[in-house]
């Protein structure tokens, strides 16, 4: 079995080049958990769908201790689902697949979900705490309204972690020196992977809100932000996956998030 860390190569500012690029804090946490969660004899693979420059991130991962590094040559505009398909095609026998929750650029955190679907394994996404034990892991998910969900992960799964969950170990000097000549496997990803090219800057959809009611400014701000009303509109329902998906869509529509 293998443990995988998915790393996304990101250039923070538009006019910057590879010198200033890197992986996000969330991806660094994912790499650290991959290294920590591997059992003796298990391979730890770092995968990055990105340009040649991204091999620096993979070499850094090798320096930190991963046993194999794969770069998937992919159109940088590829959608999350296309990236997930490409990664799924190079990942075999994965026991744990670690991803960062959000990438540095405008990420939606959707790639890990797609990846779990492609690999046909479980998922635990948006983790803010991870406890690694020998047989199973206990992880904490961040939910809306300051709620948390504690999940035990025993079978194969994709896990996405937030940036502050772990601090990536510092590679040893020997590791760095050796990583210089390590081989990076390069796989050519599918060529037509751009589902939708959205070149516009990200703006959340506008929602019309009624003017807040309340006697004081503080009350009005409270009513605008839901602050303090943790249980505002929450309910726990147990549904099978298709029904759950339908329910999410209808609720989002009801709340005005979907067109």
């Amino acid at each position, binding site marked *: 079995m293998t443990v995988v860390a998915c790393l996304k190569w990101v250039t923070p500012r538009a006019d910057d080049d590879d*010198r200033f690029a*890197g992986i996000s804090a969330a991806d660094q946490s994912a790499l650290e958990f991959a290294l920590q969660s591997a059992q003796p004899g298990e391979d730890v693979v770092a995968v990055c769908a990105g340009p040649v420059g991204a091999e620096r991130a993979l070499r850094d991962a090798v320096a930190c201790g991963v046993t194999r590094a794969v770069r998937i040559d992919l159109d940088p505009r590829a959608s999350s689902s296309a990236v997930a398909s490409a990664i799924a095609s190079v990942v075999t026998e994965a026991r744990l697949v670690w991803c960062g929750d959000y990438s540095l650029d405008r990420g939606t955190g959707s790639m890990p979900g797609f990846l779990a679907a492609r690999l046909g394994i479980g998922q635990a996404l948006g983790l803010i705490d991870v406890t690694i034990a020998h047989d199973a892991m206990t992880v904490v998910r961040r939910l809306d309204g300051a709620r948390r969900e504690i999940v035990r992960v025993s079978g194969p799964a994709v896990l996405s972690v937030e940036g502050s969950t772990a601090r990536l170990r*510092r*590679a*040893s*000097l*020997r*590791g*760095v*020196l050796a990583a*210089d000549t390590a081989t990076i496997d390069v796989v050519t990803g599918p060529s037509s992977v751009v589902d939708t090219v959205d070149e516009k800057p990200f703006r959340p959809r506008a929602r019309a809100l009624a003017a807040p009611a309340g006697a004081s400014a503080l009350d009005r701000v409270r009513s605008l932000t839901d602050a303090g009303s943790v249980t505002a509109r929450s309910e726990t329902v147990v549904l099978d996956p298709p029904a759950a998906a339908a329910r999410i869509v209808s609720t989002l529509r009801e709340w005005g998030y979907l067109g």
Partner: protein
Amino acid sequence: MSDADVIVVGAGPAGSCAAIAAARAGRRVILIERGPFPGSKNMYGGVVYPRILDELVPRWWETAPIQRWVVRRSTMVLSETGALTVDYRSNAWGEPPYNGATAYRPDFDEWLSRQAVAAGAQLVTSTTVTGLLRDASGRINGVRTDRPDGDLSASMVIACDGVNSFLAKEAGLYTATDPANFTLGVKETLALPKHVIDERFGVRDDQGVDIEILGGTSGVNGGGFVYTNLDTIALGAVLKLPKLAAQKKRPEEIIATLKAHPAIAPLIEGAEVKEYSAHVIPEAGYSMMPTMVTDGMVVAGDAAALCLAAGIWLEGVNFAMASGMYAGEVAAAAVARNDVSAKSLTAYTDKLNATFVLRDHKKLRKVPGLVLSDRVQQKYPAFVTSVVERVFRVDNPQPKPGLRRIVREERKRAGIKLSQLIRDGWTGLRGFG
């Protein structure tokens, strides 16, 4: 066996050239840089004079990341509101083999480090050297880094770790750090469209301009500079540390005043600050230099105070590249001879003495002190500009006064003693002549 023949600390111009030279000579070289990539920690005014690279990187101008080729060099003397400019132009400098060029250090240093890697050196980034290793006899034979398992052994070390050089200090090569020997450089990278820069500075295509400024630094001894990049202008001030601290004027205020000077303001009108930066310069030249060699180590570039900062000259990169190159050559030969004692390594000092590196420094040894002296800084700019102002002013129906009279009157007005003027003039002549 040790990890390398030669460890070079710092991938600035000195370090990369040392690594190129030593690797070319067949040595195993590891080049260590604390920034995420070479050049990421480095800032300067903005002009490189890479002639010395002809030896190491033939036809360097075809691949080096250059902004503009300098075809105009000016020296500007600023009084409160006046300016006297000496301006030289040579379009030949804009053609191969070129003379000076503007470049960004994160570009230039990274490019130069790639030449070292191409020559066979191994580059390690994001790694800070924290100390020296020594053998039982006290000879330096490696470095300690801030990585786990981070000791690295070698036959010898070349310290190219820049102006703060903790390695040269740890090796006991400096006697003391006197702040009076240093200046603080602060600069703004100012964005303007290329065609606007072309028009304002009277250049076209990839031609560029280098302006050094004396005066205009709000009473803090130092100077200023304005250099043209493709679509930015580098504008900054160089400030003598003790004066800066005593004057109670902050660096960014001094820049603001310089920018507002009537001779500077029109050049940068409408420009937006893209990046603010700061770095220290070893300003005192020859008089502050450390011992250059010790058992198992040589020092090059700013780490050895080899930067030449003498008024109309602000050159450090070329001195760093040259000293680095000689250090690399000498180190390679010493390792081959199996003798890296201080005595064997004096070949490096000999080389510096025989070339422009120390010859220029020795010739100009009195100039940094003169240029940064209170007289030159506080009195001469006003004196010189008012003399010129009166020479050029037409006061009809008054007849034109004689130059000698003007000089005498203005000298008295500025409070400069004739004996001082003669002495400074003599120092300047001897220094520059």
